[in-house]
């Protein structure tokens, strides 16, 4: 049976180049970058090089890149830090959206408990926020606007440069969780007026457990993790040298091929949309234009997402869903609800996230299997019977 990995928004395989690059930092150059002898200094230089690579990929300076354990830590640090800076000036209002990743939403909830107020901007049916809503929400009390670059479930890409400009003009800090975007679409933090940006390596073929926060020069966030003097004294803990080296290699590799990959992957995604849209009672979630190249998200009425993805798994396809049963709670994903989907529709969601490793054959295989699975689930679904009956009336 064919195997198709179509859950690259969850994580990606580590690239061969990355594996080759990081191995020596575990076996030969295993020194601590803080040590002054040769193998320590080799590790120090490698970290420095990776910092330059990450900075170059974002249009930043290497002094503005701080390695973290991943995207969640970077989000927590940026948001909690900006909130603390704001509170010092008596500004205790934050702005975000309803469909952020939980690393942002749960951090916001924690800050609300500490007396901050948070505006959660609406997301529209196209999966996009409106810049005028951002502008209207900013008050004299606002210390931070944080809006994700691209959504992890529906892949919609937000008007980041416009929001950056608004925040700059209003003198409010702007952070973006770019975990899904980095390595897949071109980013320039200076041109887009981004003050802080979170990224995570395993979303673009580096290893798990490594990420970074870009924090613009002159913005001194309070530390989230105290300890040694690593990362210019701003993020303590012995550096994850292999992870950092891999991050640098992966981001460089991705950015070198960013346009070519986007072209290839979005063509695969569109082929998938075209084929799957032929299934009756289906809908595409979010804008098809302002979208990550690899993100496919659709809902199929009358079927439940977990059953759908387990049957796909039985056919060798790894996918994801935003149904309640897969979210581990009793409600379907907040992202799908935020774009106005009814619970019963959101339960039938399917996300396929492609990468440049996927092929036309992969897509055609998915399309050869998917309609049959949906038919099978609908044939045993009383909800589907209700939908069909209602239409007859």
């Amino acid at each position, binding site marked *: 049976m064919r195997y198709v990995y179509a859950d690259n928004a969850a994580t990606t395989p580590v690239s061969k180049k990355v594996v080759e690059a990081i191995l020596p930092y575990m076996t030969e150059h295993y020194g601590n970058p803080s040590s002054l002898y040769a193998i320590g200094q080799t590790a120090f230089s490698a970290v420095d090089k990776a910092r330059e690579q990450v900075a170059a990929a974002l249009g930043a300076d290497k002094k503005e890149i701080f390695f973290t354990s991943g995207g969640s830590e970077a989000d927590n640090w940026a948001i909690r830090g900006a909130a603390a800076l704001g509170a010092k000036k008596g500004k205790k209002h934050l702005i975000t959206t309803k469909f952020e990743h939980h690393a942002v939403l749960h951090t916001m909830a924690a800050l609300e408990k500490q007396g901050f107020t948070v505006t959660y901007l609406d997301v529209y049916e196209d999966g996009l926020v409106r810049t005028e809503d951002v502008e209207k929400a900013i008050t004299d009390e606002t210390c931070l606007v944080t809006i994700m670059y691209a959504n992890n479930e529906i892949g919609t890409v937000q008007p980041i440069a416009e929001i950056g400009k608004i925040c700059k003009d209003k003198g409010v800090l702007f952070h973006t969780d770019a975990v899904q975007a980095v390595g897949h679409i071109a980013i320039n933090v200076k041109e887009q007026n981004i003050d802080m940006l979170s990224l995570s390596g395993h979303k673009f073929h580096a290893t798990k457990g490594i990420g970074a926060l870009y924090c613009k020069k002159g913005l001194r966030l309070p530390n989230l993790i105290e300890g040694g003097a690593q990362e210019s004294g701003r993020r303590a803990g012995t550096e994850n040298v292999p992870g950092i080296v891999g991050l640098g290699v992966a981001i460089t590799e991705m950015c070198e091929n960013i346009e070519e990959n986007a072209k290839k992957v979005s063509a695969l995604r569109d082929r998938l949309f075209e084929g799957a849209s032929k299934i009756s009672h289906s809908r595409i979630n979010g804008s098809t234009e302002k979208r990550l190249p690899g993100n496919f998200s659709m809902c199929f009425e009358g079927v439940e997402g977990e059953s759908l993805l387990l049957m796909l798994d039985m056919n060798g396809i790894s996918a994801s869903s935003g149904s309640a*049963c897969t979210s*581990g709670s*009793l409600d379907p994903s907040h992202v799908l609800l935020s774009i106005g989907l009814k619970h019963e529709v959101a339960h039938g969601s399917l996300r396929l996230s492609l990468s440049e490793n996927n092929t036309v054959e992969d897509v055609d295989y998915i399309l050869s299997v998917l309609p049959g699975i949906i038919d099978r689930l609908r044939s045993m*679904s009383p909800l589907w019977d209700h939908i069909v009956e209602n239409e007859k009336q």
Partner: protein
Amino acid sequence: MQYSEKVMEHFANPHNVGEIPDANGVGEIGNAKCGDIMKMFLKIENDIIVDVKFKTYGCASAIATSSIATDMIKGQPISEALKLTNKAVVEALDGLPAVKIHCSVLAEQAIKAALADYYKRQGIDPEPIVGKIEEHDHDACHI
């Protein structure tokens, strides 16, 4: 979260799927908003459940619990079907993840709803025999 092999077996090849055209007891429980609906069809003769079929919209554990619960009551007298508990269903499946226990409750309730329908069709008040069937609104997703 991980499903037992038994759950996956019943999900991949569920038993007793479908409808019984001349069923004399039909019960449906759950709602679309919660993400699971179970419908049970019973054919009862001389107080024996001679045939049972189900249709389920829901996750793998909802389908697996429907499948095994129908196996457990097929050919049994009504009195035995009434004794079927969600706990017995969970045990028969070699366990369910904690967040999925409500699926087993649904299976028990769906069978009771079908039995209640059977009694109603004969002009018998089902409540003293079957007990009260929970109304299943969205708040009740949490059972």
